[in-house]
């Protein structure tokens, strides 16, 4: 009983120390690269740090910190670890189907449409949106600003080449999302990648933007930010929600991930949720 208690106490102390180390590490990363992970979900960041420590056989976070400061390119690889880029084309197809059904008819009335895809990662959802707009005949008057804090994933996104292994799932998503044509009309495949037609890339602007540190850069009719906020602490989520609110035009739309909600935010009352549970909100 005593020993167990002692162990627990030791564990507690160890945890406190590690928290301190992680604070230092995140501060260092912020000062060195400008990427601010200080307000990210700590458990997630901690897991990823440990993951990197396991891979490189580093014992302590301080050891990692040393490498970050003194070793060239190490910071870059660590930053890559931090950015989780899980995404799919037409992820949660019902979201896109609802968007097509509920939002597109309203966008159709606008002379121009500005869409901000915040945290676009490797661009799968941006391409999905572009295809959707093309099919709805809105592509020519729409501009999609696709941003992510990670320049490397943006580079991937610009190429528009996605692993062929994933295309079966994407095809299914496309169909479930209410696709108007054959999905294969948008890509050509070789044995490794499906290359999306360059015409889809027209009107998409990929740019580096950090939701934590950067300000708004335009007023948008639609803001899509899916499965990004889950990595943030509640305070940071709130901050970003305010940024979105400031960046939305009146009657503009905000699309979130299926596990995210506006319910507990201070901006809740400034939005109304449209069409059930798809996390599409309209500014009122």
């Amino acid at each position, binding site marked *: 009983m005593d020993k167990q208690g002692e162990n627990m106490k030791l564990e507690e102390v160890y945890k406190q120390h590690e928290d301190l180390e992680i604070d230092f590490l995140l501060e260092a990363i912020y000062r060195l690269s400008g990427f601010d992970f200080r307000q990210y*979900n700590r*458990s*997630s960041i901690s*897991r*990823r740090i440990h*993951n990197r420590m396991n891979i490189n056989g580093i014992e302590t976070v301080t050891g990692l910190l040393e490498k970050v400061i003194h070793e060239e390119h190490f910071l870059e690889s660590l930053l890559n670890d931090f950015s*989780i*880029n*899980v995404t799919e084309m037409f992820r949660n197809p019902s979201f896109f189907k609802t968007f097509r059904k509920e939002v597109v008819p309203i966008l159709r009335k606008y002379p121009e449409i500005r869409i901000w895809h915040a945290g676009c990662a490797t661009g799968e959802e941006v391409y999905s949106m572009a295809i959707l707009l093309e099919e709805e005949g809105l592509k020519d008057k729409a501009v999609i600003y696709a941003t992510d804090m990670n320049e490397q994933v943006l580079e991937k996104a610009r190429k528009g080449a996605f692993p*062929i*292994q994933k*295309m*079966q799932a994407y*095809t*299914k998503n496309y*169909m*479930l999302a209410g*696709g*108007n*044509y*054959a*999905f*294969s*009309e948008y*890509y*050509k*495949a*070789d*044995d490794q990648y*499906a290359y999306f037609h360059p015409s889809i890339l027209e009107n998409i602007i990929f740019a580096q933007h950090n939701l934590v540190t950067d300000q708004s850069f335009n007023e948008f009719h639609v803001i899509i930010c899916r*499965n990004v*906020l*889950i*990595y943030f602490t*509640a305070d940071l989520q709130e901050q970003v929600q305010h940024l979105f609110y400031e960046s939305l035009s009146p009657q503009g739309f905000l699309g979130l*991930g299926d*596990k*995210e*909600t506006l*319910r*507990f935010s201070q901006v809740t009352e400034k939005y109304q949720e449209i069409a059930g549970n798809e996390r599409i909100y309209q500014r009122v």
Partner: protein
Amino acid sequence: MENKWKFGIRPKITIGYIIIIVCLFASVIILNNQIRSLQQERNFLLQYNNKVETLTNNVEKFVMDMQAGQRGFVITGNEIYLEPYYKAAGEWQIEFKELYQLMADKPDQQQKLQVVRETTDLWIEEAGENAIRLKRDNDDAAIQQFYANDRGREYMQSIRNQFNDFRESEREIAQVRAEELDKQNNNLTGGLFGLLLTVSIIAIVISSQVSKSIVRTINDVTQTIKKIASNNGDLKERIHVNTNDEINELANATNDLLDNLDGREWLQTNLAEIVTKYQGVASIEALAKVFMSEIAKMTNSSSGAFYVREIEDNRNHFIKNASFADNNFEKDIGRESFRIGQGLIGQCVQEKQTFIFNEIPEDYRYISTGLGEVPPRSIFIVPILFEGDVIAVMELATMSEYSKLQQDLVKQIVETFGLSINSVIGRMEIIRLLNESRAMTEELQVQSEELQTQSEELQMQTEELTQINEQLEEKTKDAETKNKELEKIRKELEEKAEQLTLHSNYKSEFLANMSHELRTPLNSILILSEMLAENDQGRLTDEDAEFANVIHSSGEDLLSLINDILDLSKVEAGKLEVLFEEVNLSELPQHMEHVFSPIAQKKNLEFHIFKEDDVIDLFFTDEKRFQQILKNLLSNAFKFTEEGSVALTIKQIENQLQTEEMRAISKDWLEVTIADTGIGIPADKHELIFETFQQADGATVRKFGGTGLGLSICKQFARLLGGWITLQSEEGVGSVFKLVVPSLPNGLILDKHLNIDYSEVAVTQSSYEPSTAFVSDLARLDVQKQTVIEKDEVLVSLHDHTNVFQNKNILIVDDDYRNIYALKTALEKRGVNILVAKDGIECLDILQDNTEIDIVLMDIMMPNMDGYEAMYRIRNDLQLKELPVIALTAKAMKNDRDKCLEAGASDYISKPLNLDQLFSVLRVWLVS
């Protein structure tokens, strides 16, 4: 009010009546007295007169009696006669005395009586006694003498006269008295009427005063009540009555009622108001704050604190959640927490009772104001209960006192407030749980994404490791192995080279074969038609011969077209030779007319050719390509025109109309216009039709046939000639194609612009559609198809390091042999094993027996069993859930695609098929 002397309506009315009655009584009494005195006076007058008369008569009679007695005695001397005399002489004086006394108030009459008495006494003296004495003396003489002068008679006469006089006077006096009585009677009557009038006036005045005072106050009250009623229930109005009577009491009672109502309304309003105030409040602190500030306002409290129960270690603590002080100097008032039984407030919790103290304990803290500190006058401690338990307590302090109403209000509010607190606590708990669950959901999502990333990373790392391992293995291999490897690689390279040569040979062989195969039948056509056209035996009419000519020249065109198609591969490779030479334009109109007039005639169309005069005769271009363009455009025009006309216009573009760039290339530009009145081309297809194998739409193919190659060749040829083709067209009106070419004596200098054109040509060539190829012009199509597939195959073998198609089994389900043929040919080239089913039933049969099928290509419109049903059965009856089934659908039918999805298609691809797209799809679905 109570002390004030009360003067009610009843006394008012009663007093009025009493006054009137008293007046009446008074008048009756006065009247009665008057009447009675009048009566007495009259009676007295009557008795008096009677008595006076009786007495007078008696006195006179006595005097007479004496005279009679005296005389009798004198005459007779009998003593008997003297008896009445003496009697009368004795009694008359009594009567006289009485009479005299009666006349006490009348000295005149007494005097008269005195005279009567004196006279009577004189008679008695001189006549009576004297005579009697004389008789007794028997002195007759004296008697005689006496009677001679008879003085008695004189006296008697005088007495009688005197009595008469007396009586007369008495009668006169009585007369005067009667008149006096009459007068009094008249006065009485007058007084009676006067009294009646006075009493009436008094009665009227009193009644009017009383009624006025009553009615005025009633009116006041009515007025006020009406006002209240009309004020929409504004209960602030009060009745004011100045009188102190029952109306005043009524008014007071009504005011009390209004006070009560007002109080109750205040209570209800505040109750309702406070409930709305804390509706939708999400936290207990906010609720307490709102509650405290509201309740303090309503109760005029100067300070207050609100404590909410919190359970810690199974003990109830009450923690301060809100406080209120009506100044800002000391926001934080009251102790932070307390336990049950601690202090008055703790006592209140224990007893679950509302406490109100008006005698403040000495140690009670003072209410601080801006200027100092003031002790509160009253403290109010209220427990808030929920289901019998105290869940919160509130303490209020005021510098005045809490009214009954305020206390009632607080008690009533508190009755339901327990429920509110509980529901807010419940809501907070729900929100906390929801937040927790949201955080957990997010965390799960994060973890799942991280896991996914990690698994991807792991996979990548595994792959990398495998590679590294392999590399290491390779590295550790000895020289021998390396040599072997090198040898192997060399052999492979040799093999590759051989393969390439082989492919190249295949291609050349194929081209030669095809050329041969096509030329053989064409040859016979050409020879025979030429023979016919010569018409040696003269058996043909001129027209027949002309037809044969046309067949011949068309055959030649076809031949040259075949050559052109073969040349298309050269175009791709940049190997097409363009020969710029002198062309005589003057012959062009005849030539075109020669070729196309028969067609115009046959279709009953007008065919006009205009050539402007200023067109130069000698023009430098590749005549073969130039004519081919014109022929293609014209044959298109005729093909798509059912009625109307086709016009060919040749003109030279004037120098000033040329652009700078045009002038740089050549000074002479020719513009050839082919205009028709045919079906036209929709605007959105203008670009498309210049692509290889494209026509405006599928329907056009079915109606007019054609390969769709013509315009594409024209476009490329036009570019090769240094010019371009433009199109103006409106659906249903017609089309105008314009060919613009320069005259180039020295040929076209290959500049950048042209290079781009070449690359564009190559791109256009690589995307094509084989499925329409079979509809018509089979020969031309086959040539084209084979060529391109050949090319494609070469590319594939060059680029694909691993051929995903090798040895894959693909089941084609289609009832159209042409489709099957096209797909089969294309796929088999890549090493695919093809199985064919003619309809859904066959497809199911094959799938039942053969488990090796990798992909099914499913047509939809089929006899016996269509594609939808077949797919449905594959998924449900055969339970092949994972087998990729790619539906081949018509392009424009959204409905079909939805049905495909429902039936269980993995993907769909629109017909007419694009081979690139097909291969992309197959790659996607062949990936494991």
